[in-house]
């Protein structure tokens, strides 16, 4: 028999401020479910970043810190070094993690910092009105690439998971997607494993979550998930990049 499904207890009840159909909401629920299921609610300290999810400390029920733009991995490092027994995670967008915060994520990973990163890749700066992000696809139109991203002057999209997988301290890296139910289920599995890797003290773990930003993509939520599936998944291949065989 199906269990009764309801909002996870690690998630506060008020409505979140995200736009209709935004993947952030789903990602929040999934993270909260994982924390519930691992019994970590009282043991977790999360780190919010700067992006549309800047204030998600309001939505979770556990302790959190709001970090400066890009610096969540450094903040998480500070927390983890004070409370090595706690579970510490960062929740970061692609502008936050792959642009201004490049050095911080790379070095947290290189140090094998025992934290988990939930990396919401929606190929744009959602919060500031849809500018080009390091993850914006070639040819993609954004407010700062109005003629489509021109790789010869604006560079190529960065595959952060592949980059981070090069680092010895990064022990679990997986890319998942939010575009349909089956993928959301798979995403949850990956996020759970990432937290488990941290609990086992193995090193740095990250899950890159392909996400939508219907508002700045100028698409309905339904069209947005279609766009993700059609365009993003080709360049950002789903799957495990590191730590597939870790038993945790």
């Amino acid at each position, binding site marked *: 028999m199906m269990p009764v499904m309801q909002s996870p207890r690690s998630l506060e009840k008020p409505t979140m401020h995200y736009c209709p159909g935004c993947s952030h909401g789903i990602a929040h629920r999934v993270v909260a479910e994982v924390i519930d299921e691992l019994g970590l609610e009282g043991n977790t300290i999360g780190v919010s970043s700067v992006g549309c999810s*800047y204030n998600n400390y309001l939505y979770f029920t556990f302790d959190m810190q709001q970090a400066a733009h890009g610096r969540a991995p450094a903040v998480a490092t500070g927390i983890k070094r004070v409370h090595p027994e706690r579970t510490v995670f960062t929740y970061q967008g692609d502008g936050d993690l792959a642009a201004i915060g490049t050095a911080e994520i790379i070095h947290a990973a290189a140090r094998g910092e025992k934290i988990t990163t939930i990396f919401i890749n929606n190929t744009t700066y959602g*919060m500031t009105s849809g500018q080009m992000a390091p993850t914006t696809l070639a040819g993609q139109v954004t407010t700062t690439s109005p003629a489509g991203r021109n790789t010869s002057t604006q560079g190529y999209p960065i595959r952060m998971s592949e980059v981070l997988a090069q680092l010895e301290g990064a022990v679990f890296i997986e890319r998942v997607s939010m575009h349909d139910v089956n993928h959301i289920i798979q995403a949850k599995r990956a996020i759970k494993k990432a937290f488990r890797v941290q609990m086992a003290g193995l090193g740095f773990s990250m899950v890159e979550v392909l996400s939508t930003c219907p508002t700045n993509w100028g698409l309905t939520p339904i069209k947005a998930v279609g766009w993700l599936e059609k365009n993003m998944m080709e360049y950002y291949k789903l799957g495990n990049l590191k730590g597939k065989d870790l038993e945790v």
Partner: protein
Amino acid sequence: MQHEIIIAGFGGQGILSAGRIICAAGMAEGKNTTWFPSYGPEMRGGTANCHAIVSDGEIGSPIINNPDILIAMTSPAIDKFGKMVKENGFIIADSSLIEKSRIEATGRTAYSIDAARKAGDMGHKAFAMLIMIGKLIKETGIFKPESVEKALYEVLKKELHGLIPKEMDALCVGMEM
């Protein structure tokens, strides 16, 4: 003479454009105008508002503490801005979207018109804004209808210029409500 107008409602109702149309129309008649939007994460919540000032003289602050006029397109807008309206100012409220009791609670003169419904009847919910502006003209004579036409050509994207005659019809509807 100076008109200080706040326009407030949900994102998607054309709130910010309405303000720009008012300013552009004022400018077309040689007046000074300022337009100031709500911006940033506020907009994620779904609400939107802007401040428009149309004046014969120099304009000081573009931010309005006490509007002469509030154009309200939702109940939360009335709740938030209604009491800020000057004692001798007034409210234009879309009665198809706002509960009467909340308009009354402001204690201000209010013109309730069911713009959204009318606009729906006319074939496009975007016309509601023009109906409201029509009512504004009727109550204030702030500018001539022709100036709104000019403004529409300036503010609207090229793709939408075909709609302008119908928008002007909506304006007239508003001027008669």
